[in-house]
């Protein structure tokens, strides 16, 4: 098997992926989204130099950029850990064919070089390098610096695959990232100048780029050896077996008939990779408010604050809810042939979302630091989430017939199936609804009226809960066969 044959297989996999079976409108939207990210990277690359120059005029902006590079390294690593899949899952069919193992492994590893995560830094650093050259930094040394950065990007790429096998290492990275930002924020210790020295030395000295180059080669070799050693069906190809964990969930029995589903859902979330990812995501949503509440620009735009408040408590509700019933897609036929009442099923999902919302609200108590107004807004947002957003999200989920592979992490930007016009339309009331409900009374009367309106909207939703659930149930019944067919499609 030659590289061209490998490439042809890859090309077929790409051409025949579900992406190309989408409607034209979606394709255009996806391409626009891709271009958007690319444009952000390009303009970021061009702009960052001038931003630093303007922000701190008495310092060399390039020096500052180098200082901050450490955050890129750690942040990129964290992002990749979540989003970038190990490439090993496709090698099973190759094992029995007369292909040299080293050829497959080399191809696999090189293939990862073309991932989105490696292209994005290029889009950022190429414009930056050009700007540097134009600004009078020595072109040759800038080029060497660029190669050094590129080598680091690739090191991260390969390091990620090693870390992926070892979750402890990942938490160390996260802890490093959090503590270095924290220490800097509170002015105790700033790590950036120390690491900046290394990055700057690529430019200043040049020969130090041997360090990242050496790192790439080393990490590549390590990956190679790791894969080579595990190139058996009980090795890297095989999905990890998880240790059985059991918890006493009897306390949930107080929810009566809903407890059956509730207990099952909790097991589902804690024992599968994909819902665990959702859980971490929804935890991160708790911090969403920090982006808005800390900025003075938004102080006078309370509609945006209302928007942020929805996300503080609604992270789990939105990320989990939009995939109901897809979470049960792997065994949907069982659910459909068993004695399951749709209403109970839906109500249990709603309860889970509502409980998560309450938990998020409790965890959001530190936001009192930003003032009681903000906290009241978060409370009103939680009310809206529980009473209205939950039902809107569940309705959206009912229209979303994407099978979920529970124990498979979501791949970055490959989750395009969930992306369709109906989903887009459904997300509009989720985003604009609370803003409007808050803004109109706020504009007409005052801030408190806005808060009260938002809270009342949630309570109103709760009063009509039964009606909403019936409505969603009808949607389920109407689309039953379509959903079964979609869920049993092979991925």
């Amino acid at each position, binding site marked *: 098997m030659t590289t061209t044959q490998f490439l042809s297989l890859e090309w077929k996999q790409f051409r025949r992926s579900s992406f190309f079976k989408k409607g034209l409108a979606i394709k255009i939207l996806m391409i626009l989204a891709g271009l958007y990210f690319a444009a952000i990277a390009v303009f970021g690359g061009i702009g960052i130099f001038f931003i630093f120059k303007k922000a701190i005029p008495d310092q060399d902006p390039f020096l500052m950029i180098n200082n901050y590079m450490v955050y890129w390294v750690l942040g990129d690593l964290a992002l990749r850990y979540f989003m970038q899949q190990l490439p090993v899952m496709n090698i099973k069919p190759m094992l029995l064919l007369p292909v040299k193992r080293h050829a497959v492994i080399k191809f696999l590893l090189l293939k990862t070089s073309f991932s989105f995560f490696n292209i994005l830094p290029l889009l950022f650093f190429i414009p930056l390098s050009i700007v540097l050259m134009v600004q009078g930094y020595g072109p040759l040394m800038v080029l060497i610096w660029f190669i050094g950065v590129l080598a680091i990007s690739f090191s991260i790429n390969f390091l990620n695959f090693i870390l992926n096998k070892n979750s402890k290492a990942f938490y160390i990275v996260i802890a490093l990232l959090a503590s270095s930002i924290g220490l800097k924020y509170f002015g105790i210790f700033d790590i950036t100048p120390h690491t900046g020295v290394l990055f700057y030395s690529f430019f200043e000295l040049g020969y130090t780029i041997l360090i990242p180059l050496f790192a790439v080669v080393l990490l590549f070799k390590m990956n190679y050896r790791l894969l080579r050693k595990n190139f058996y069906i009980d090795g890297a190809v095989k999905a990890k077996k*998880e240790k*059985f964990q059991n918890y006493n969930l009897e306390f949930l029995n107080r929810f009566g008939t809903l407890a059956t589903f509730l207990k099952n859902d909790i*097991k589902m979330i804690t*024992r599968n990779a994909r819902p665990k990812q959702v859980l971490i995501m929804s935890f991160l949503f708790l911090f969403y408010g920090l982006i808005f509440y800390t900025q003075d620009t938004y102080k006078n735009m309370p509609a945006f604050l209302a928007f942020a408040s929805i996300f503080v408590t609604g992270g789990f509700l939105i990320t989990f809810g939009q995939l109901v019933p897809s979470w049960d897609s*792997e*065994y949907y036929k069982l659910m*459909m042939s*068993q004695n*399951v009442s749709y209403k109970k099923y839906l109500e249990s999902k709603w309860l889970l979302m509502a409980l998560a919302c309450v938990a998020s609200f409790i965890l959001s108590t530190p936001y009192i630091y930003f003032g009681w107004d903000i906290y009241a807004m978060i409370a009103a947002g939680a009310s809206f989430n529980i009473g209205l957003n939950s039902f809107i999200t569940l309705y959206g989920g009912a229209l979303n017939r994407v099978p979920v592979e529970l124990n498979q992490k979501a791949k970055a930007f490959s989750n395009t199936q969930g992306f369709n016009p109906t989903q887009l339309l459904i997300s509009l009331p989720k985003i604009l609804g609370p803003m409007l409900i808050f803004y109109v009374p706020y504009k007409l009367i005052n801030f408190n009226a806005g808060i009260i309106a938002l809270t009342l909207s949630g309570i109103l939703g709760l009063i009509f809960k039964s009606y909403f659930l019936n409505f969603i149930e009808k949607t389920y019944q109407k689309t039953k066969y379509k959903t079964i067919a979609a869920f049993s499609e092979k991925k």
Partner: protein
Amino acid sequence: MESIIDVQNLSKSYNADKVLNIEDLSIPKGQSFGLVGNNGAGKTTFFSLLLDLILPSTGHIENRGIVVSQSEDWKPYTSSFIDESFLIGYLTAEEYFYFIGDLRNTSKAEVDELLAEFQDFFHGEILNQKKYLRDLSKGNQKKAGIVAALIGNPEVVILDEPFANLDPTTQIRLKKIIKELSAKKHVTVLVSSHDLMHVTDVCERIVVLDKGEVVKDIHTSEQTLKELELYFEQ
């Protein structure tokens, strides 16, 4: 004998392809009913229609007088195991059994009682394993799925290819279980299989499907296996 499953003018087409066409078929209560046929004969399609997982193009199936696509009232007394998509991969076997028990209004104690009867069948490989169903072997998954289909005293049990992937010992035990179900408990058992020997061993009646049509409807006797083998040799 009164019939429990009644099929009338049933057909299923995908575009112009007719994959199933059964004009009239009724299965009496308590019968062990075998469905055989080559790949693509329509066995799984028939079971899927029976479980209302797909809609028929024409006609309907009645399960104890209830048209399955119009009401869900047949679900409490009907259970099935078609394939692995009937298992919940992240549960242990026990958790799965109790979950099904909950859905079928069967208490934990009753489930335990039932499981105790199947100690033999499980061969010590299902219970107390501290393993999730997704990590069990195909054969053991099947065992768990089959036993789960017996929870809650169903009147109709539907098993698609129950013998495939099972080891010889378990196949023999399963045959005994199916025979007892129909003989002692008057449960109507519908089984499909590629294994002519097993199906003639177990079933009182065998229907052969070919390209969606019923081509043979045999009351099992000494000669049945020969007859079937002769038919499939062609």
